[in-house]
């Protein structure tokens, strides 16, 4: 070991190193070795560019492995070496030194992990370098001081032999930190070969990187064997425009014959992001990272971004903690969007679901979900329509239709809310039912000035009138009233006892829907056949049979009416604006519905589609934000478990699917609400928002969950096999 003769003070505060570099090394201790190897490779590259040396370039990585302690390491190159001036620059923080793979590139403390960081991570570290016959020895202390051994002294033959530096070159040595857990030489070699940061370097034939076991003298040439290629999926060059400059990106996506391990640092399934020849910056599948459906995908993204990296005014593409490309950097955002789009296309080609939901029910549910989200947003962002001094119903009078639930609001001024605050709700007419909630409680001190609570009312008796009375407990007996009347539902009074209700409807061009044919029970005789006739461009079944047994007929009955859902369909497309008529004939009775063909309405809002997907993922259900799609993955083992014979009618399957979807939708509501900075979802600790997100999810689950459960159970019942979703 060299002898330390004097020291120089450090330049940055140790906190910076603790916060960034040490954390990066702790997450992935192999980075220390990689950094030293890469430094050696960079030195060779610079020599090659100057025309002073030709490949192969040898780098020796010597390990002294011990059973109970982390290994010691020596990384040796016979490249440029450094004189004391350059050495000073290389070990100093915050300076701009021309040291990377690209001779014009800038590496500094803020731009990446450098030699000094790797040295600092090594215990008892020393750097010995020889250039033009002069030897320099330095060490880096944990408090950033630089220890100096020999300084520009002529190198002796003995020293050359000791450090194995034939002409010019550098050797860095030290003991790897405690958090480097691997102890066996073979394991260390294997991990180095698999490490994503080493991959491009090992694939480059110019460099010969040899790992040497100090005890056995075993020498192993490190190499990376790419996965076995089955098919090339994408090979494309595109441009990313950033700050009025276009940067070329070469994207290669392959499919391997076998499933590959995923994730950094040793996974194989993913895209290797790099610039230059071997400077790897990330290994990820963007939004599909660790998605099992991509477990056979591997490839690379070559980024011609050297000018961004050289630009000192530009924020670094790699995040501060060196986890990979910074997803918030505008360039990376654009890059990830482009790649996500291509990965999605790959996914769509690879996967096509065998299942589909009933389109009409699905659309209704999507509309309802968007409405619920609007309500959630509304109560968070916008003010309620009225601001009561205590609490009040809104509206103050409501008309219900029999057999149709109706939602009203109770607006509460949060200034009256105390810890044991509760409002009890009572109906003065037993035929007018408060479905939920009977008692309004405020669990925690509200942050909004006004709280909007939804109340669901229901009645099955037309003509009823009554009041809903809200009474506040415990310290006051304030009460508020809301008038309620129950109107006749037109489906129960079909014209002549046999009619479509309503008698006018619109249908999407090229689409299909169901229209309600209502028949008064007293109008039903022995004949079971209803004849159906439609005019162009709408088609419908030629006939429809009423259930033959009384008990089956009873199942279709609500009150006094048998409601039949008759499917109608537009023949082909390009019929927008055309009108048609569907006629139903039963004995001497005739029912008509006028149909107008309209263009497909655009579904706007957070949710745009719900899919039962064939993707293999670790998740059961996921909301794809960019597309607004809620996906349920039926190949997931937990779902498969329920999808056995007649599963559509089994309660355990329905409840499981409905609850999974409900929870995912609610999480999507909350996370979207947080992104939109809704006052309903404030986040205090932005670094660790998970706890608060979970709390909001739970709150919304109790508030909106029951409604969604019912909707998703209905949807799950309509699952059809054999129709392609895409």
């Amino acid at each position, binding site marked *: 070991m060299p002898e330390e003769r004097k020291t120089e003070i450090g330049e940055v505060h140790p906190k910076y190193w603790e916060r960034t570099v040490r954390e990066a090394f702790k997450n992935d201790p192999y980075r220390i070795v990689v950094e030293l190897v890469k430094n050696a490779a960079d030195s060779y590259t610079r020599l090659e560019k100057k025309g002073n040396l030709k490949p192969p370039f040898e780098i020796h990585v010597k390990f002294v492995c011990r059973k109970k302690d982390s290994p010691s390491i020596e990384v040796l190159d016979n490249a440029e070496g450094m004189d004391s001036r350059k050495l000073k620059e290389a070990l100093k923080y915050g300076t701009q030194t021309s040291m990377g793979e690209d001779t014009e590139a800038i590496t500094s403390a803020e731009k990446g992990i450098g030699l000094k960081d790797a040295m600092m991570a090594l215990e008892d570290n020393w750097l010995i370098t020889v250039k033009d016959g002069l030897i320099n020895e330095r060490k880096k202390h944990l408090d950033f001081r630089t220890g100096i051994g020999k300084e520009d002294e002529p190198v002796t033959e003995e020293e050359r032999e000791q450090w194995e530096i034939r002409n010019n070159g550098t050797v860095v040595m030290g003991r790897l930190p405690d958090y480097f857990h691997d102890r066996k030489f073979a394991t260390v070699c294997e991990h180095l070969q698999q490490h994503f940061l080493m991959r491009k370097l090992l694939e480059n034939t110019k460099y010969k990187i040899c790992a040497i076991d100090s005890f056995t003298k075993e020498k192993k040439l490190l190499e990376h064997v790419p996965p076995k290629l089955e098919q090339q999926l994408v090979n494309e060059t595109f441009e990313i425009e950033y700050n009025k400059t276009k940067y070329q990106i070469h994207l290669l996506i392959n499919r391997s014959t076998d499933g590959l391990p995923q994730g950094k640092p040793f996974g194989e399934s993913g895209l290797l992001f790099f610039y230059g020849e071997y400077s790897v910056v990330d290994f990820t599948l963007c939004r599909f990272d660790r998605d099992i459906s991509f477990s056979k995908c591997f490839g690379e993204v070559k980024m011609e971004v050297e000018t961004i990296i050289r630009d000192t005014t530009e924020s670094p593409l790699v995040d501060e903690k060196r986890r990979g490309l910074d997803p918030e950097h505008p360039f990376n955002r654009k890059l990830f969007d482009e790649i996500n789009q291509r990965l999605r296309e790959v996914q769509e080609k690879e996967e096509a679901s065998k299942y589909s939901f009933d389109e009409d029910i699905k659309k209704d549910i999507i509309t309802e979900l968007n409405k619920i989200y609007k309500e959630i947003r509304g109560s968070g962002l916008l003010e*309620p329509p009225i601001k*009561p001094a205590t609490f009040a119903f809104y509206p*103050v009078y409501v008309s219900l239709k029999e057999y149709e639930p109706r939602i009203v609001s109770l607006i509460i001024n949060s200034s009256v809310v105390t810890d044991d605050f509760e409002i009890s709700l009572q109906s003065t007419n037993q035929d007018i039912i408060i479905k939920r909630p009977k008692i309004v409680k405020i669990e925690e001190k509200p942050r909004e000035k006004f709280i909007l609570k939804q109340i669901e009312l229901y009645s099955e008796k037309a003509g009823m009138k009554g009041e809903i009375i809200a009474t506040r407990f415990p310290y006051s007996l304030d009460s508020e009233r809301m008038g309620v009347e129950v109107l006749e539902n037109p489906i129960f009074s079909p014209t002549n006892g046999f009619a479509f209700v309503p008698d006018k409807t619109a249908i999407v061009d090229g689409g299909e829907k169901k229209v309600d044919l209502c028949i008064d029970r007293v109008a039903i005789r022995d004949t079971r056949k209803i004849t159906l006739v439609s005019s162009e461009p709408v088609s419908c079944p030629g006939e429809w049979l009423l259930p033959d047994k009384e008990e089956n007929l009873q199942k279709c009955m609500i009150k006094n009416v048998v409601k039949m859902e008759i499917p109608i369909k537009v023949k082909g497309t390009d019929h927008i604006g055309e009108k048609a008529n569907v006629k139903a004939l039963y004995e001497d009775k005739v029912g008509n519905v006028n149909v107008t063909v309209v263009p497909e309405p655009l579904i706007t809002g957070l949710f745009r589609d719900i899919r039962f997907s064939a993707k293999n993922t670790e998740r059961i259900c996921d909301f794809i934000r960019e597309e607004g799609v809620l996906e349920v993955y039926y190949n997931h083992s937990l779902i498969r478990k329920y999808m056995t014979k007649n599963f559509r009618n089994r309660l355990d399957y329905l409840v499981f699917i409905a609850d999974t979807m409900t929870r995912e939708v609610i999480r999507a509501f909350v996370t979207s609400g947080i992104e939109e900075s809704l006052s309903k979802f404030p986040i205090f600790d932005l670094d660790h928002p998970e706890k608060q997100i979970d709390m909001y999810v739970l709150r919304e689950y109790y508030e909106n969950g029951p409604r969604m459960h019912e909707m998703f159970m209905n949807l799950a019942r309509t699952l059809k096999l054999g129709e392609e979703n895409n």
Partner: protein
Amino acid sequence: MGQTGMKKDEDVIRGVAEYEGNYLSLDKDRLVLFAVGLLESKKIEPTFDKIVVTTFRLFPKKFSLIGFAEYPDGRTIYYCAYNHCTLDKKWLFGNVQSGFKVTERGKYFLDETKKMLEGKILLTRTHQVIARRKETTFITILKKTNAYKKYVQSKKEAIGRAEILEALMLPPNSKSLIQTHLKKYLEYANRVNDSSVVEFLRFAEDKLKGDNNA
């Protein structure tokens, strides 16, 4: 009710004073409903004429004619009482021929309106005070022009002649019309009592004069 009774009703209505609280933010339909409710509470049959006078006396700032603050805007009250409160909202029952009556449904909204007038419930949305007439229509259009917006933002220097002409709905080469339009707009602005528009029109007048002299 006899002749003396009728007179008595009129006397009672003549004695109705302007509502003391803030009623400007409430919508006119609720105010008409309140007036009908008041008549019913005083056992006065709410016929159309009585509703017009009671509404106007209670809420003169909301139901007077533009430029004639001492006269009620009978047309607006009719629309509120019949078209809105009776046909649409079903708060009232009846018509001009048979008079009006607060319905069961209307009673709930009447209670709510009373609370609003007492300040127990505040409305998030505030409603327009001035009726939609030619004056308000033209002033509203003028307020949407670039020239007026810049004037409000204290960017007077940035307002060009063309922008002022556009605000006053004047074609580019029509010196003869400038005074006529300015006069009309000033008249409308004064009638609807909009001082900021009056100031803008004075500024526009000066600017146009200055440009002509140059």
